[in-house]
């Protein structure tokens, strides 16, 4: 049903004003700030990584800790993956715990060893840990390859030998 002159009636003008405000607000605010719920630029997966790293830890008793088996321990050691497609700490109240993993980049050995050594204070029973880093990158044949992992031994400066051992 068409109401002639609707846009010029007081009611039509009121409704149009609300429509205009809605459009203007949702078009402008996301240009000023990436995320401010309910406004959003929907920035998920806007990055274009060329590679990523998997970090794991091997304990003196031979146990392997990976992202899948024990993420909490990896997080305590600072080698967990925080990435899941959205910019970290944007549009949320918390930033995930610090990590050596900057998705899409390869951290150098010194940085990883320093980060893990500092955090071994929480694990005084471990004499050392071995950090295993695997780089996952594109291959020339159009597939994705996992390079052989590099292993770095990190001695625990906080190690307390158990009594009697």
């Amino acid at each position, binding site marked *: 049903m068409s109401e002639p002159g609707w846009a010029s009636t007081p009611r039509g003008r009121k409704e149009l004003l609300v429509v205009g405000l809605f459009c203007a607000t949702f*078009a402008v605010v996301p240009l000023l700030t990436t995320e401010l719920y309910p406004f959003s630029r929907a920035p998920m997966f806007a990055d274009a990584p060329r590679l990523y790293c998997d970090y794991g830890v091997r304990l003196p008793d031979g146990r392997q800790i990976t992202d899948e088996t024990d993420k909490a321990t990896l997080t305590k050691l600072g080698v967990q993956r925080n990435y899941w497609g959205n910019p970290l700490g944007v549009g949320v109240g918390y930033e995930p715990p610090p990590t050596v993993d900057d998705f899409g980049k390869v951290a150098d050995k010194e940085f990883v060893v320093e980060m893990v050594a500092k955090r071994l204070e929480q694990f005084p029973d471990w004499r050392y840990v071995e950090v295993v880093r695997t780089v996952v990158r594109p291959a020339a044949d159009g597939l994705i390859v996992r390079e052989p992992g590099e292993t770095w031994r990190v001695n625990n400066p906080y190690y307390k030998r158990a009594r009697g051992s």
Partner: protein
Amino acid sequence: MRPLSHLDRLGERSRPHYGQLVLWTVLLCACAHCLYFELYWGTRPEGSVRVHNPASLLSFLPEAVTLNRGVCVGFGVLFAAGAVLWFLRRLLPWSAWATAFSFNVVVALYFENSSQETHVAHVAGMFLLIYALWYHFYRREIRDADRAGRFWATPLYPRWVYFLTVFYLGLFYGLSGFNKVATSGLSWANGVSLQLWAELFGDKSSVFTQMILSSRTAAAAMQWAALVGECGGLVAIVSRRLRPLVGILLIGFHIAQISVFGWGFYTNMFMLALVFLPVREWTPQVVAWWEGKAGNANLPIGAAPSANREIGVPRDRG
């Protein structure tokens, strides 16, 4: 010619079947989202650090409010009560406003307490707001029509409600698409990043994951389709002709994305189907067919199938 006459079309009204279909769908989806956000409120890794950038429009409130689970549960209860009353068209327009407001508060409070952003609920939140605006401006007509038992026969659904949903959906995807180009350039769609994401997050049993991982060309083609679909969101706002095409591209993108990654963009998919595909144009025909089947004899004059041509969806240009 009056200066605003070209906007008169936004005030054209049709019977409320299509509007109610969208409203009921979005209410159902919002219930699922609300339950999820209530259950997973405050889920974040130990050692997460509070950030001081505002996450939502509620960030200006004291932490005693934004970090309080009781507040989130309270708004969840308000949402549930509002949604039931709105569905029954009771306490209008307050039930509509309570539903839209409390849903968006629950989502905002979830973000305030989380370390991971998600975009699965933005569309539901804004569709509720748009539909609350409809019920607010047409509350008297809706109440009168209900009292007279002629709700379904009365032209109550203004075109601007549909226009706002098209605008919001198109803008949501358009911004996302152009943000990708602005951040990474057109090389975003080179297939490598999608292969890496599929390797990392993908369900390896999905046929789409296998296609992506076995061929960079296939991965690049999918990324281009997604990018064209997302950027096409802005085109869909102005072009009625291209809107279904953009809708199909984006629905396809969501089907593949759900199959590979499992992220729950179901609400977006339903809204794309209802808003970008010609459902609004088909609805009066389905209603006419149904009413014809049910028998016209007992129906009010305004509800007769012939009336649909008059007060259904006009043959529009945009």
